[in-house]
């Protein structure tokens, strides 16, 4: 658990970067920090592992005031993925991933097998990439190594600063899917910075929208989209926020249980689809009703345009 209590940061009198921030990241939760460039996302993140010190306020980590902990020890227990990737250019990919275990004194063989399994986890074949130097990898591959490096000592807390920024949109989608899968495997408290609202909605348990050094709203993606707290949040979420909300909702949440005419020849949509994808298909089918099918091919419901009106 990470608690910010009345945290402010300014570099010199007059310029306030963060203004009286209070928020709590629960154990095992993935919290997204999002906001326009320069709003203080990285600053807030870097306060956690004491890369910088707050001007006032407290940060509690697992209930302990981080200012009283030894910074080097603290950082060894926190995985940190920096915005600029920052792989060590003179170390091979294996050596990069093994850095923290090696300073903690883990045996070589154990380190290597851990590094191999982590490289697998982030989708890099250790036999191919392990012995290369960072410069021989693409930006996206380097970012994956950065994530593996941060995971290597199995920290309870992960700080990730725009970890997918260096990849093209298609690869990014794939990385996000991989990350969601990893996230359920590793069960860590994660603070994740992004400026991509779709990414935030897709992977965050809760999203903290920042602007001008202050928290604008801190809630689940669904609540954020349903009820933006102010104009800034609403415009940040975009005009299509109702559609974004549908993308979070399974079609099964809107469908009607079929009456007697079930099985009638209609277009079909899979039960695993989002309400947004089903809407797109309905528009393609000129608004006619669709059967909602389960994986076994049974009709489990019906969906029509009119079902979207009573959107909860």
């Amino acid at each position, binding site marked *: 658990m990470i608690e910010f209590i009345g945290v402010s940061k300014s570099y010199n009198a007059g310029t306030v970067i963060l203004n009286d921030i209070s928020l709590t990241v629960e154990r095992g939760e993935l919290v997204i920090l999002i906001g326009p460039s320069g709003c203080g996302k990285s600053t807030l993140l870097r306060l956690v*592992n004491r*890369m910088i010190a707050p001007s006032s306020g407290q940060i509690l980590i697992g209930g302990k005031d981080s200012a009283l902990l030894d910074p080097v020890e603290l950082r060894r227990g*926190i995985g940190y993925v*920096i915005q600029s*990737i920052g*792989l*060590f*250019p*003179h170390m091979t990919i294996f050596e990069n991933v093994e850095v*923290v275990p090696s300073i903690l004194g883990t045996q070589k063989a154990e380190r290597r097998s851990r590094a191999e399994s982590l490289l697998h986890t982030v989708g890099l074949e250790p036999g191919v990439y392990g012995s290369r130097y960072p410069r021989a990898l693409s930006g996206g591959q380097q970012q994956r190594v950065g994530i593996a490096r941060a995971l290597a000592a199995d920290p309870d807390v992960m700080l990730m600063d725009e970890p997918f920024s260096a990849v093209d949109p298609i690869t990014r989608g794939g990385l996000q899917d991989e990350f969601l899968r990893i996230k359920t495997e590793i069960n860590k408290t994660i603070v994740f910075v992004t400026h991509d609202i779709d990414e935030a909605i897709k992977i965050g348990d809760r999203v903290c929208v920042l602007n001008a050094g202050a928290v604008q709203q801190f809630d689940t993606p669904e609540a954020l989209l349903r009820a933006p707290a102010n104009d800034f949040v609403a415009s940040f979420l975009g005009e299509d926020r109702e559609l974004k909300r549908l993308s979070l909702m399974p079609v099964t949440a809107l469908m009607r249980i079929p009456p007697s005419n079930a099985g009638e020849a209609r277009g079909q949509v899979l039960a695993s689809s989002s309400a947004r994808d089903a809407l797109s298909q309905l528009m393609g089918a000129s608004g006619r009703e669709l059967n909602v099918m389960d994986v076994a091919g049974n009709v489990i419901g019906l969906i029509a345009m009119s079902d979207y009106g009573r959107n909860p």
Partner: protein
Amino acid sequence: MTLARAALLPVLWVAAFALFAWQDGWRLALTALFPNSRNPVFERATLLELVGQHLAIAGLASVLVLIVGLPLAVWATRPSGRPFLPLIANTVSIGQTFPPTAVLFLMLPILGFGAQAAVLALFLYGLLPTVSGALQGLETVPADALEAGIGSGMSERQRLLRLELPLALPSLLAGVRTTLILVMATTTIAPLVGTGGLGVPIIGGLGNDNLAQVLQGALPVAMLALLTDYSMRTLERRLTPWRS
């Protein structure tokens, strides 16, 4: 390819020393080249002895440069030494703006005639490239790598040993290479304060208009400088495989 390169280096050094040791060969060649010279070969010491003296003086000065220069550069880039960074950088470069002969003669009243004066002058003269190479290397360590190192929980010492020094190596070693070659070449004027080395036949030969003896001293100096350069470049490639 790299293996052949690694094997070439010791072969070249052994060949060079075999050539230095072949006194009769030099006598034959220089007599043939300078038939009018009465004594084309320096006779008070063998060429191998001169090379030995030369390497001893140049080696001692170079080792002193490393022992003093590298820790100095490291200290000047630590928080405790950083206030002295400009002072160190300036002092060291002033040491190099003096012509080496001037430095040599300035040493005379302090250390008198002899090897100590020569070694000290060469040390001062050779300090700049090593210190400035090391400083430049340490000051240009990529900021993102350092940030990642701090964020990974490296102590200051671990950062120095695992990140800063290895990443400074290209610049640092290039500085050391320049020092070694500079000192190797400048040791030639050490006989002016009464020491030995390959400068003895050169300076003597210049005084007596004996070009043969000048050549007998100058050729080995050039060979040693070239071999040093080649060895250092090989070492640099070896120690920084991540660059290519």
